[in-house]
């Protein structure tokens, strides 16, 4: 099972600042193992963020996004908003975590 994310959301003047750290190797498909064999690409491909059930961001990643991806964005919202972050990777693994805007 995929490891949990860290989601932080802080409200300031009606704007919620969301910072997300995801635990994922984001294997590029460019690296070779010790035996010289190419390690196949494996990466988070799609990402969705909702606040109180409504989409606030959708993202698509390629294998060029860094290992343990970081994402920061802002939306119009309020303290107490329930933020749900979900991702799916190229092998179909998925993970969903939540946070409350403070």
């Amino acid at each position, binding site marked *: 099972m995929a490891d949990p994310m860290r989601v932080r959301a802080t409200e300031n003047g009606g*704007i919620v600042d969301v910072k997300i750290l995801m635990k994922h190797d*984001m294997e*590029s498909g*460019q690296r070779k193992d010790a035996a010289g064999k190419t390690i196949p690409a494996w990466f988070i*491909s*799609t*990402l*969705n963020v*909702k606040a109180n*059930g*409504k*989409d*606030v*961001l*959708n*993202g*698509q*990643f*390629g*294998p*060029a*996004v*860094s*290992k343990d*991806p*970081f*994402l*920061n*964005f*802002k*939306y*119009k*919202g309020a303290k107490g908003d329930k933020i*749900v972050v*979900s*991702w*799916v990777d*190229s092998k179909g693994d*998925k993970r*969903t975590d939540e946070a409350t805007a403070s």
Partner: protein
Amino acid sequence: MNQQRRSVLKYSAIFGLMASAGLISVAQAQEWNKAAFEGKSLDEVFKILGAGSPDKSGAVTLNAPDIAENGAVVPVGITTSLKAEQMAILVEKNPSSLAAQFFIPAGTESFVTTRIKMGQTSNVYGLVKADGKWSMTVKEVKVTLGGCGG
């Protein structure tokens, strides 16, 4: 009502429930844009995104370092005074140009920051789609060799 039709209905009801509960999301339903992420050149990706040859715009800012201490983690952010619907980050000299693409719903600021990998020093492109039209900005990021190198 035949058996098959009934189970389809049942499934869609469950899917609807899961979606409203946030268990499955648009991202999961949304198809990953394979063609765009496998595009080898900037022009190829521009075409697949429907961006044609985007104009350079002073309204789009790419927030990236001049020098990255390590190509494995290069912080890149896009901001724009335009009302962005989509944003994309492209690296000219990466094996596949498109690094990430974002869809910005109404109510979300025209701002996103993430971190990308760069194989070598290259131009990095920040693209913004606003009012149905793509515009862009470009910045060179130098990737240095670091550490003892062993």
